[in-house]
């Protein structure tokens, strides 16, 4: 395993990244335990109450339907984080298998596969996601798949270049001399060594996907009411910002903070695992 204790020591020295990591862990706990933490249900309407500014009863206020904003944000963090993580996993599976096959086999196959990636890079992908969501309907699973399906290109490039250099190393030669099959070498010897760069890229991918989910929900193509996601909450807030500023301030603030923490956590991981590629 390339994930060694030196990398963790380097990571610990980066204070900002550690703080961001703690924040993300706390947020994940909030999302996980949302049903226990939330003071109200996310779809509990109190039409007679209407939109209330923040108070002791409703720390973040309520929306136009009298729903508690804090509870909706807690449940929304579940959706947003789940989409970020699940779609990243989808892109990981596609990208790692595509890239490792191209890198390991090399030659004409590699050429053809990477040419395809080049062409796909030039496509306006968000439009395909929008069309995919139209075709498949607005469900969470479809959201995972659609976003994951368009995010694997960079991952496949990274994996390919890593596999290409790893397959020339002595331990792979030794495995080949011992009579291991191509598949066994790839899975048992090469892929475990890819863990570092793959983790780093996946961590940087999560905020990008969360942003795309917010973007889709914002356009009315993501998750469906009354299920809250942060993108949806921001959009609700935009529509009522003149009269109820708290409806935009809290969701937008939480969303920005989360994106900030996730991207600096990702940067910290990259610097720790791969000190050469400092950008």
């Amino acid at each position, binding site marked *: 395993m390339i994930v060694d204790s030196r990398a963790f020591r380097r990571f610990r020295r980066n204070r900002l990244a550690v703080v961001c990591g703690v924040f993300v862990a706390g947020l994940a706990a909030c999302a996980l335990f949302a049903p226990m933490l939330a003071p109200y249900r996310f779809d509990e309407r109190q039409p007679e109450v209407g939109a209330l500014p923040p108070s002791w009863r409703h720390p973040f206020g309520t929306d136009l339907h009298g729903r508690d904003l804090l509870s909706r944000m807690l449940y929304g963090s579940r959706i947003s984080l789940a989409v970020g993580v699940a779609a990243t996993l989808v892109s990981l599976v596609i990208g790692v298998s595509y890239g490792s096959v191209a890198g390991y086999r090399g030659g004409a196959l590699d050429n053809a596969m990477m040419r395809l990636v080049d*062409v796909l890079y*030039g*496509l*306006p992908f*968000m*439009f*395909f996601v*929008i*069309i*995919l969501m*139209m*075709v498949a*309907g607005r469900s969470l699973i479809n959201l995972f798949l659609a976003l994951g399906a368009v995010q694997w290109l960079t991952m496949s490039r990274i994996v390919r270049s890593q596999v290409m250099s790893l397959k020339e190393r002595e331990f792979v030669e030794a495995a080949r001399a011992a009579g291991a099959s191509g598949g066994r070498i790839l899975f048992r010897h090469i892929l475990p060594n890819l863990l570092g760069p793959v983790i780093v890229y996946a961590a940087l991918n999560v*905020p990008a996907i969360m*942003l795309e989910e*917010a*973007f889709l929900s*914002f*356009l*009315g*193509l993501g998750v469906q009411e009354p299920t809250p996601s942060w*993108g949806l909450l*921001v*959009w609700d*807030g*935009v529509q009522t*910002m*003149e009269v109820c*500023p708290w409806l*935009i301030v809290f969701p*937008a603030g939480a*969303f*920005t903070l989360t*994106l*900030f923490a996730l*991207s*600096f956590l990702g940067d910290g991981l990259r610097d720790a695992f791969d000190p050469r590629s400092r*950008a």
Partner: protein
Amino acid sequence: MIVFILRRLLWLVPTLWVIVTLSFFLMRFAPGGPFDGERKLDPKIEENLKHKFGLDLPLHRQYLRYLGGLLRGDLGPSMVHRGRTVSEILGEALPVSLLVGFCSIAFAVAAGTAAGLIAAWRQNSAVDYALMSVAALGVSVPSMVLAPLLIGVFALKLGLFPVASWGTPLHLVLPVVALGSIFAARIARLTRAGVLEVLQQDFVRTARAKGLSEFMILLRHALPLGSIPVLSYLAPATASILTGSVVIETIFYLPGIGRYFVSAATERDYTLALGTVIVYSTLLVVLNLFSEIAQALIDPRVKPR
């Protein structure tokens, strides 16, 4: 170089063909159609409408018909905006989107380069830390958060700019800043890192020894070479500006093609949605080409493929 540009432009044809084919068939698998409005149409009228737009033909015939029209430069009639062609609608909307997109990129490059250069020039000073903190925060504020913030402060509170809509140059300011800021922040970070790296190289020492002023070194030597990472970032940045413009046009009620795309996709206006996708893809490929040419011109180490 010319061969390279021509070859890339030729690539545009198969790329567009793939895009058109994929989107054409994907959209037809989506449930619903352009005539499923609020109230149910008389079956007779629906029949006539379908016949008029050729939707009663077998799918492959419709596809060939569409491709044939495309070759003649005809994007077909809009199915929802009755009596208007897709080319008319896009012809009106495209200048708006192009103007907003172009100004956003220009703003991002100008502000980002200036901030990065100043930060590198005064490395580790208070100015450097201030600029880079703003940039660090800026890379994680999405435009859909920044836009309402800007509206709230500069339009509603201070009344400096109009809230939304289109017409005067003042209408342009908030959308451009909202769309461009995140890229300006990233460009500032890239520029600072790039310039600092160049400043450590031997030829800079030679230039200093020659007696060139620090300012000239920065401007003549460090900036062009240090901007190479920025140039390669410009291609993905323009792509996200294109998609980001959809959100910005929705928030600010700008009559650009992004807004038409979303409404066309949800209303199943097949021809208008396809036309928008074609315009966006062409823009994307051409912009990518520009950024590659610029890279090859500045950095002799980059060989155009």
